[in-house]
């Protein structure tokens, strides 16, 4: 797999040894530069609601992979896999995103 270069900041903020997989509901979708953000809620092991912010690549790169600003919307069910913030904040660098259709969405241009 070709690993895209980070556009604006590197991946130093993420713990690339710690992969997490979360299933939740989209609450906001920000299709903006330099990186697209997916905000979602999920329930932790105690049953409490947590808000997470998932980070994707640049919007132009996602457009070339078939996305637009309507690809995700509040209420969509998603399962995301990626690297969590090294600081412990609920922030992740998304490496796979299974969308409402149940299929993984393409995250990388060719």
């Amino acid at each position, binding site marked *: 797999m070709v690993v895209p270069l*980070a*556009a*604006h900041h590197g*991946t*130093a903020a993420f713990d690339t040894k710690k992969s997490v997989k979360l299933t939740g509901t989209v609450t906001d979708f920000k299709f903006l530069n*330099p990186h697209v953000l997916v905000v979602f809620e999920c329930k932790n092991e105690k049953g409490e609601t947590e808000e997470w912010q998932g980070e994707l690549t640049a919007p132009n*790169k996602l457009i070339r992979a078939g996305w637009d600003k309507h690809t995700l919307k509040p209420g969509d069910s998603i399962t995301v896999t990626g690297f969590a913030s090294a600081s412990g904040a609920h922030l992740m660098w998304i490496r796979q995103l299974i969308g409402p259709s149940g299929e993984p969405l393409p995250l990388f241009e060719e």
Partner: protein
Amino acid sequence: MACLRVSLGFCLFAAVTCAQTPAPAPAHDLTGVWMLRNPESMRAFAGATFTKAEPELTSWAQAKYKEAKASNNSTYTLATTNDPVLTKCDPPGVPRVYFHPYPFEFIHTPKYTLMLYEYDHTNRRIYTDGRAIPDDPDPTWMGFSVGHWEGDTTFVVETGGFNDKTWLDRLGHPHSTQLRVVERFRRVDRDHMQIDITITDPKALAKPWSTTFYAELRPKWELGEISCSGDYLDFSKIEK
């Protein structure tokens, strides 16, 4: 036995059809959208600098280089770098423009060739009407470029007239206003280009710094907009 002969014949046929000849490069034409795609062996450094080995810096440049806080691929955040492109949205300059992971486009006109970069509306105008780089050019971010063809498929571009505010790469190697960059865009076939880059600067580099980068044509791509402003600079506030 008949089955064996049939399958052998099939294999030979398959081998023949697999040996495709790349489509040839058109003459005097780089038109299209291109994306840097350096080979795997270069990936460890080519997102941030030109060569695995350090360039030979003058003592003037070494002192400046010590002040640079790199914006290397995976080892920085906005708080740890002083890259002027990322922290101030300064134009990247040439050759620092090679270190944005976005495509660029060539457009030929009768008197000049345009290079358009997706990153931050960056463009370069490369004069092909025979003029030379002025003797005492006004300093600019992207420089003053002239170009000519060598043979049918190599477009040679020389650029000077830079200010000294940009870095040469994402590691922060500095340059002076004496910077000159020669790029040889060699279209080896329709879909592939090799870019030989030679950087000279008597004030900053003890000897020329050279590399070869690789690009691929992306016929289905169009350049979009990536503006280094607004959301871009505010991103750390939007991001948790």
